[in-house]
């Protein structure tokens, strides 16, 4: 599909050397990080010892996988600057809310994972259901990532698909099995800088070639089908007759900006895990806030290449031409000389591996702490669970390889599966947020809400995308808008069931939920002493959070 059309890069020995050095460094990270792993908590949560700048950059880098980069450049080419909705309204507010409001509920309760929070706040069935769906979803997503990585290596470098899959899986296996979460996080931070070093030159050369920002505006407006609409974020978002490619504003604000975004950033354990590995509560709070600053500016590195490619790459996104996903690889082939080309290629491959590694490192944690230890083999020494973690990492990667090969045979099925998983966060977020702010919410309301919300998410996805074989009840033109409305439906069903079941069942004694819900502090809060530490003003979560929000607001007005 995409493979046959993407540009083959003209790589030489210089580029391969740059790539080789990076992979050698990644192995070195695994070996060096291994010396810092003696307990299961070292392996799964880096011993809760990392500084905020590391966890903060890893927080944003875990999301900056190559699928995200290529996909957002594709959106840039297809939709124009409306794509910033995925960043400014669809990420930054949720990251700030996580840092300022929700983080103490995760960090100060010393839970190891998001499912463990659900066990303490609700009950074991809720816990088991969430841990199981998360484990399955993340290991399959890792496989999809691996397949995508194999495809891109195949198309850019001409390697056979199977070789590309095995080589990349091998590197991820080495640095995670040895170094655990520290290995994953350190690699993510390194990858973050390398991908910037690859994308920034691409943006500079691309903009120069179209005559700067004004030249880009003029050429997109006059010479492409997208036209001047490419430069309006909120144009055409009226409810009822939305012409904006992302649909109406209710879908954008509540579906994307509230349910999907808050669901992903505040309850997806692959993200939250990065904050839990921070060395103290303040560092954990600052993790998503530090991550928010790069997130504000990353659209410049994805949307601009997308639009430049729309102008300069003939037939991009049309019949017989390269797909929108090829925007960045096509520009790399067109503009980058050997040297920088190697850097950009390294950044792209590193981003793919990081995407897979984030899934694997959250999968092994949930499997060991939330499935194996509580339900299968209990009460063993810590060393045993460290061993389990290493073994399940290998098994998880093997399943990922298997998934990647299945995906290569049934590409469409994998697309559906991946889209489906993106819905799982919506009901989880509903259950989580009601549980935090409503202390009366009962344990069985947690379970019933989560299960019915998840079922609603699956049904909404199938019916809105016309997969049930019956005509859809409502027809929504934009595929993106269908996702937003599907998420809203799952959220509403979850909350409604939660409220009804809470009325019918018995809440937990208030003593059991202290520290877990809003307004019921834990008198033995382990971070109470830490809060007394005097810190510099720039380490204040509030200053960081509101600065990020202010910058986003100003930029939103400028690029209205």
């Amino acid at each position: 599909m995409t493979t046959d059309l993407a540009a083959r890069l003209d790589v030489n020995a210089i580029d391969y050397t740059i790539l080789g050095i990076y992979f050698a460094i990644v192995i070195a990270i695994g070996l060096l990080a291994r010396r810092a792993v003696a307990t299961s908590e070292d392996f799964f949560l880096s011993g809760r010892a990392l500084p905020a700048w590391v966890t903060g950059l890893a927080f944003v880098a875990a999301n900056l996988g190559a699928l995200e980069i290529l996909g957002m450049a594709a959106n840039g080419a297809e939709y124009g600057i409306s794509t910033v909705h995925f960043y400014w309204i669809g990420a930054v507010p949720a990251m700030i809310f996580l840092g300022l409001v929700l983080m103490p509920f995760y960090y100060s309760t010393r839970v190891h994972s998001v499912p463990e929070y659900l066990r303490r706040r609700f009950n074991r069935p809720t816990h088991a259901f969430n841990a199981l769906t998360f484990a399955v979803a993340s290991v399959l997503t890792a496989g999809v990532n691996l397949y995508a990585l194999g495809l891109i290596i195949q198309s850019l470098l001409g390697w056979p698909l199977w070789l590309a899959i095995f080589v990349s899986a091998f590197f991820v296996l080495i640095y995670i099995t040895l170094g655990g979460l520290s290995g994953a996080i350190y690699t993510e931070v390194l990858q973050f800088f390398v991908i910037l070093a690859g994308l920034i030159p691409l943006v500079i050369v691309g903009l120069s070639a179209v005559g700067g920002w004004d030249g880009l505006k003029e050429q997109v407006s006059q010479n492409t089908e997208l036209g001047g609409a490419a430069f309006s974020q909120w144009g055409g978002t009226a409810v009822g007759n939305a012409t904006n490619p992302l649909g109406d504003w209710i879908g954008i604000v509540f579906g994307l900006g509230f349910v999907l975004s808050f669901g992903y950033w505040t309850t997806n354990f692959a993200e939250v895990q990065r904050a839990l590995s921070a060395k103290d509560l303040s560092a954990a709070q600052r993790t998503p806030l530090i991550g928010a600053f790069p997130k504000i500016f990353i659209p410049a590195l994805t949307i601009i290449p997308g639009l430049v490619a729309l102008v300069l790459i003939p037939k991009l996104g049309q019949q017989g031409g390269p797909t929108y996903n090829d925007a960045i690889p096509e520009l790399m082939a067109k503009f980058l000389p050997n040297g920088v080309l190697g850097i950009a290629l390294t950044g792209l491959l590193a981003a793919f591996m990081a995407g897979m590694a984030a899934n694997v490192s959250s999968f092994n944690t949930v499997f060991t702490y939330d499935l194996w230890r509580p339900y299968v083999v209990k009460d063993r020494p810590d060393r045993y669970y460290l061993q389990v973690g290493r073994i399940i990492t290998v098994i998880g990667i093997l399943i990922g390889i298997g998934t990647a090969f299945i995906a290569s045979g049934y590409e469409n099925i994998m697309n559906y599966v991946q889209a489906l998983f993106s819905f799982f966060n919506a009901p989880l977020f509903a259950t989580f947020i009601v549980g935090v702010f409503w202390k009366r919410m009962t344990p069985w309301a947690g379970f019933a809400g989560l299960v019915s919300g998840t079922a609603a998410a699956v049904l909404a996805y199938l019916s809105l995308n016309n997969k049930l074989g019956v005509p859809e009840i409502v027809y929504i033109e934009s595929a993106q808008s269908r996702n937003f409305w599907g998420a809203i439906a799952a959220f509403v069903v979850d909350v409604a069931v939660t409220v009804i079941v809470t009325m019918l069942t018995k809440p937990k004694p208030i003593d059991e939920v202290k520290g877990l819900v809003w307004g019921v502090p834990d008198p033995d809060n382990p971070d109470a002493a830490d809060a007394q530490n005097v810190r510099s003003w720039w380490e204040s979560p509030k200053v960081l959070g509101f600065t990020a929000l202010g910058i986003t607001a100003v930029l939103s007005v400028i690029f209205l």
Partner: protein
Amino acid sequence: MSETDEEVHAKSASRGLFDLRWLIAGLFLLYGVALVLIGIFDSAAEVQKADGIRINLWTGIGMFVLGALFALWSWLRPLRADAPASAAAGADDTSGSDRPASDV
């Protein structure tokens, strides 16, 4: 569990984790120098490919500067400088945990 959480916590080797800043510094200084050299010797055709910009040279300079900044930061504020703060924070959970566990 056969050990208490505190006992396990005391065994943590996480303090033995190396300083990532040196690694970033090393990699970017190396890439930076390499790209600057490649950039200086770029042929006219290669410069033309990048719309007339010596992109290898400029990227190399940028990466070198970033590497140098990381080296400077880790040299001025070594990792151990903030160790007392976290040791003090850990001191109230167990009496023996303020000594970092050595490498395993």
